[in-house]
């Protein structure tokens, strides 16, 4: 299903962070309007080392270090986009988008529509989210539902190195604002990545694994956990499909619905807290669709607890779904119904 795997080009093994960096370099090489803006992205190389040595190749004008000033950074990117540039902003932790929310939600997201289509804001906002690093409540959130709830933002959550590159390139090509939520725990994960600048289409759910007994829909770091769980479930004789929406808005719900029609069971897995989370939207789309009549079990949601992310490692692990949780919930869903 993924455009990436169809690419007839050489692939190498890269980390997710290297894949993001390669996308940025290729986009800047191809289009002089593309430039980077963010805190400590120059000589320091980014808080998570994503921009690395890009400043040496492209210079400090295009790999632009900013003060700690998230609202100013995103606002400047909106203005630069309106004036003909293609800025790619890095917000150091996705939690800090709270500082910039006016420019994200009230400006970038609204301008094209509010002006009757007279202007575009080709802005990409990259930000790492997620827990698992002991950074506690203000550096560990999964805020995708905030952005997905705002008309005028496209929201992307890459879960593999290949997608980190292919989705980012597509986001940079897009004439409108795209929020790309990377995951800190994935930055060091390795996987095959095409050398060429292959794009993934925004709004296309990837089918990562196919099985007949249930459909697991997962986002971000939960995709790899769901795949690991699916392997264990296979040992118990349960065959799971694993679907990765990749783009939350616009959402390709058709692929999800088709899968649930086949399996009759859905387990929706996210790291973010359950209440009003993105998987509530996925559940509703399934419930509203022709899949409803094919359901053999209630739609299950396995989510983060409705708590701020805690510091202590044992508490942090308990706050978000782990592989064993997915195996247990999926097994119960299949055996009970």
């Amino acid at each position, binding site marked *: 299903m993924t455009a990436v795997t169809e690419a007839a080009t050489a692939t190498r093994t890269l980390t997710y962070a290297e894949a993001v960096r390669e996308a940025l370099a290729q986009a800047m090489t191809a289009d002089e309007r593309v*430039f980077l803006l963010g805190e400590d992205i120059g000589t320091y190389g980014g808080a998570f080392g994503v921009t690395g040595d890009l400043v040496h190749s492209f210079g400090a*004008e*295009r790999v632009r270090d*900013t*003060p700690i*000033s998230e*609202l*100013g*950074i*995103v*606002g*400047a*990117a*909106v*203005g*630069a*986009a*309106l*004036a*003909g*540039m293609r*800025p790619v902003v890095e917000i150091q932790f996705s939690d800090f988008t709270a500082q910039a929310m*006016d*420019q994200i939600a*009230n*400006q970038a997201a609204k*301008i*094209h*529509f*509010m*002006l*009757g*289509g*007279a*202007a575009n804001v080709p802005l990409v906002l990259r930000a790492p989210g997620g827990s698992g690093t002991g950074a506690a409540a203000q550096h560990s959130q999964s805020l995708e539902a905030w952005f997905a709830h705002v*008309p*005028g*933002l*496209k*929201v992307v959550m890459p879960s593999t190195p290949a997608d980190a590159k292919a989705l980012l390139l597509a986001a940079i090509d897009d*004439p*409108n604002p795209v929020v790309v939520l990377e995951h800190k725990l994935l930055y060091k994960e390795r996987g095959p990545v095409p050398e060429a600048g292959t794009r993934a289409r925004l*709004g296309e759910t990837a089918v990562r694994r196919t099985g007949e007994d249930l459909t697991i829909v997962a986002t971000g770091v939960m995709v790899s956990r769901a795949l690991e769980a699916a392997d264990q479930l296979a040992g118990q004789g349960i065959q799971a499909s694993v679907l990765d929406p990749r783009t939350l*808005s*616009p*959402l*390709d*719900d*058709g692929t999800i619905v088709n899968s649930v029609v086949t399996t009759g069971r859905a387990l929706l897995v996210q790291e973010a807290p359950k209440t009003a989370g993105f998987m509530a939207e996925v559940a509703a789309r399934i419930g509203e669709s022709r899949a409803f009549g094919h359901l053999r079990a209630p739609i299950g949601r396995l989510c983060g607890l409705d708590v701020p992310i805690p510091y202590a490692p044992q508490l942090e692990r308990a706050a978000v779904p782990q592989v064993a949780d997915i195996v247990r919930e999926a097994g119960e869903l299949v055996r009970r119904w």
Partner: protein
Amino acid sequence: MMDLHKDAGAATEILRTMWTIRRFEEAVDDMFARGLMHGTMHLSIGQEAVPAGACHALAEGDYITSTHRGHGHCIARGARLDAMMAELLAKETGYCRGRGGSMHIADVATGNLGANGIVAGGVPIAAGAGLAIRLRGQDRVAVSFFGDGAVNEGAWHEGVNLAAIWDLPVVFVCENNQYGMSMSVGKAAKVERLAERAAAYGIPGSTVDGNDPQAVYDAVAEAVHRARAGLGPSLVEALTYRWKGHSKSDKNLYRTREEIEGWRERDPITRFERAVAGTLTDSEIAGCREQARDRVRAAIRTAHAAPDAEAATLTDAVYARSE
């Protein structure tokens, strides 16, 4: 610097711009009071010298960002009156096809990056336009208009600071009309002059009579010159006054009739007409007034005749949607 009073061409243009803003907003006020116009709006009657003087210092290709009280900036930058009026009347032919209304009119053709419903929202955007100018090696400037209320927003601080540290070609024009809705500027800031804030960013700041187009023009022209020369941004505070209420909900409970009358006596248009009496004849001055009236009337006629914005096309400009 040009003496606007002595140059017949400049004097005519400034006077015609101020009258056009005045007549446009009077017409809007009237239609609104008669229930012929929907929504809300914020009038800048009494403040016309600021956009007229400031925009006279700009060239083609320069950018502006504007505010919720933005009709004047839009008109002074050369926007089409019929498309503005059509927008206010919720017509398909409006600048925003009826999606934006008074608070979101932009005119990309004249470098107007848009009015803004968020106080100080346009300030970092102007810094970003300045950054684009720099990265593209252009000889342009970006002027950010905002009110006295904006200077206490975090966005204002962040936008001005970014422009300052990068020496961006941006001019920050504070249209100090004395009130942020009902909060007087004296209660909202500890400094005597808002232009003093410039020192905190290491940029020049000046305070001028915002009811005198010449004073506004001089200060903004100097700031524009600096910006084009690569010397970075400036802050110009123009002292003026909003004659009308903040918006339709305003009962004027926070200020006195005497205060309003005092400022009306310093009407920027009357003052400018007196100042240019030696340069323009009475009939030339009357001509500016009549042209403004006629243009506004024509705009209203054209807008009224235009088709309404239609619900059938509501989602035309929506790009993030599930198929």
